[in-house]
């Protein structure tokens, strides 16, 4: 059909001299800031002409694995897509199955799901803040503070679900267990502690002159381009598109809780970081409301034997952005085809296109990339 084998990548971490004084810089998988992937930067030493995100290093073929797992087993592989907010990712899969089988989940399960998803979103945003500050050249203080501040939340989640990150707590039809005793008071106290810590992050990070100088006006994503290239999550909202899946297409208990969408029109790297801190505050509100008026009742409902729909597209707001799960089934217990469109996959495309519309310096490449909160495992599937 065509000869794919002829395409040869350059070996890792090698600087390749191109013509016209340019050289190709491989910030390869072994680079201190690149994470599990590689980005190839073509630059002349100062100005970056093209960034290419080379993904695929941790491609496990989750879409193929899901075709060999029944609906209950499918939760565990899909959580491995992003270790940071597994409950949001699992919610995507579970929502798609519930749409196929037309299940209406009891309200108490919906509230428990919302609490766990918001707790998970806080963890994911905190980790993203840590990585972003590290890439902007910070000594790893903020990274370690955020890691230390995630511990109380991980304890709560371990108390409820039994695991620190791979909860596999949501199943099609509800949740696996009810809230244990004493978790309500512990959550409220931890949220107070977190609110106190958020003020510290604002003072020492967001309203910090050197950070503002370093990231303001850098990597501006205009509204039209954000929509055309398909940015996802805070990166979209900060460029002036007020789209939040929890608000536009409410799932779980989001329609009964009122919260504001964090939006801005500047669309540069500074505000992508700022938006994540604001979203942590919004998540804290949501958890407080959910904890206050959580209804009593059942936590789980059995799936009907036969699916009502043949195919369904579920959209869920994960920490990194909006995850779309398309599922096609032929009535058997294993889904026939699951297509996952992760947020980082689309954010990487936006990162690759940005140098075409704006001059970006070599020193700005890591903060620019980490302002999009990239997650190579998420993009690789």
């Amino acid at each position: 059909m065509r000869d794919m084998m002829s395409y040869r990548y350059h070996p890792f971490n090698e600087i390749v001299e191109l013509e016209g004084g340019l050289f190709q810089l491989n910030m390869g998988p072994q680079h201190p800031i690149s994470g599990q992937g590689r980005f190839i930067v073509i630059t002349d030493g100062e100005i970056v002409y093209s960034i290419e995100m080379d993904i695929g290093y941790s491609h496990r073929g989750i879409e193929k694995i899901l075709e060999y797992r029944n609906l209950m087993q499918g939760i565990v592989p899909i959580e491995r897509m992003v270790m940071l907010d597994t409950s949001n990712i699992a919610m995507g899969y579970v929502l798609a199955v519930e749409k196929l089988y037309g299940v209406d989940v009891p309200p108490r399960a919906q509230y428990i799901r919302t609490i766990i998803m918001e707790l998970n979103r806080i963890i994911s945003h905190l980790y993203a803040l840590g990585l972003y500050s590290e890439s902007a050249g910070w000594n790893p203080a903020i990274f370690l503070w955020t890691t230390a501040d995630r511990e109380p939340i991980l304890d709560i989640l371990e108390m409820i679900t039994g695991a620190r990150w791979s909860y596999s707590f949501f199943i099609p039809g509800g949740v696996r267990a009810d809230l244990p005793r004493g978790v309500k008071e512990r959550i409220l106290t931890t949220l107070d502690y977190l609110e106190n810590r958020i003020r510290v992050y604002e003072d020492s990070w967001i309203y910090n002159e050197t950070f503002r100088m370093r990231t303001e006006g850098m990597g501006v994503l205009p509204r039209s381009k954000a929509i055309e290239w398909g940015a996802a999550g805070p990166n979209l909202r900060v460029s002036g598109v007020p789209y939040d899946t929890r608000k536009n297409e409410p799932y779980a208990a989001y329609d009964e809780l009122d919260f504001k969408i964090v939006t801005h029109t500047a669309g540069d790297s500074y505000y992508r970081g700022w938006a994540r801190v604001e979203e942590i505050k919004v998540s804290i509100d949501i958890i407080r409301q959910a904890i206050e008026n959580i209804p009593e009742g059942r936590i789980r409902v059995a799936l009907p034997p036969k699916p009502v729909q043949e195919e369904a597209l579920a959209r869920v707001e994960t920490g990194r952005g909006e995850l779309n799960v398309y599922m096609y089934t032929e009535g058997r217990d294993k889904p026939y085809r699951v297509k996952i469109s992760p947020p980082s996959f689309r954010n990487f495309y936006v990162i690759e296109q940005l140098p075409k519309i704006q001059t970006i310096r070599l020193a700005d490449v890591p903060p620019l990339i980490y302002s999009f909160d990239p997650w190579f495992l998420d993009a690789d599937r």
Partner: protein
Amino acid sequence: MKPEELEKILKEKFGENIFSTKIPENKRLFIKINGDIVEDFATFLKENGFDMPITMGATDFLKQKRIEIFYAIWSSTHDFVVFFKYDVPRDNPVIKSLVKIWSGVQKFERETWELMGVDIEGHPNLKPLLLPEDWDYEKEGYPLRKDFNVNRYMSPWGDEKQ
């Protein structure tokens, strides 16, 4: 605009080329269209405010000898998703790239080309994306196809040898 109104407009414009439409819930419109009219169907959607591509992929139907290509486009003005799909013969699938209309689908098409083996015309940079560079398509086959032999990758249980 609501999904029902768009459905009516599309029915008038494309008539019999639209095989089936479905509105399972308030913000979705599933459409099955004929493969030939994809280009102007897409441009028509783009003019009506459907500007953000969110998913693009392909499903392999081994028994019916066809591959179903699907696109999902969200509209920032009408705030709902159009999910249109069309069929392509399975033995030699060739589709036209929609990158000129929605540049966001470029990476999705690249991935579909690589994993499903669907040849795409007019795509700016068809390079391997997820699979290793030395992936031998003749011996291994395309991963997302149903006739892909998965057992080679199953690791044995415990201490039994393969």
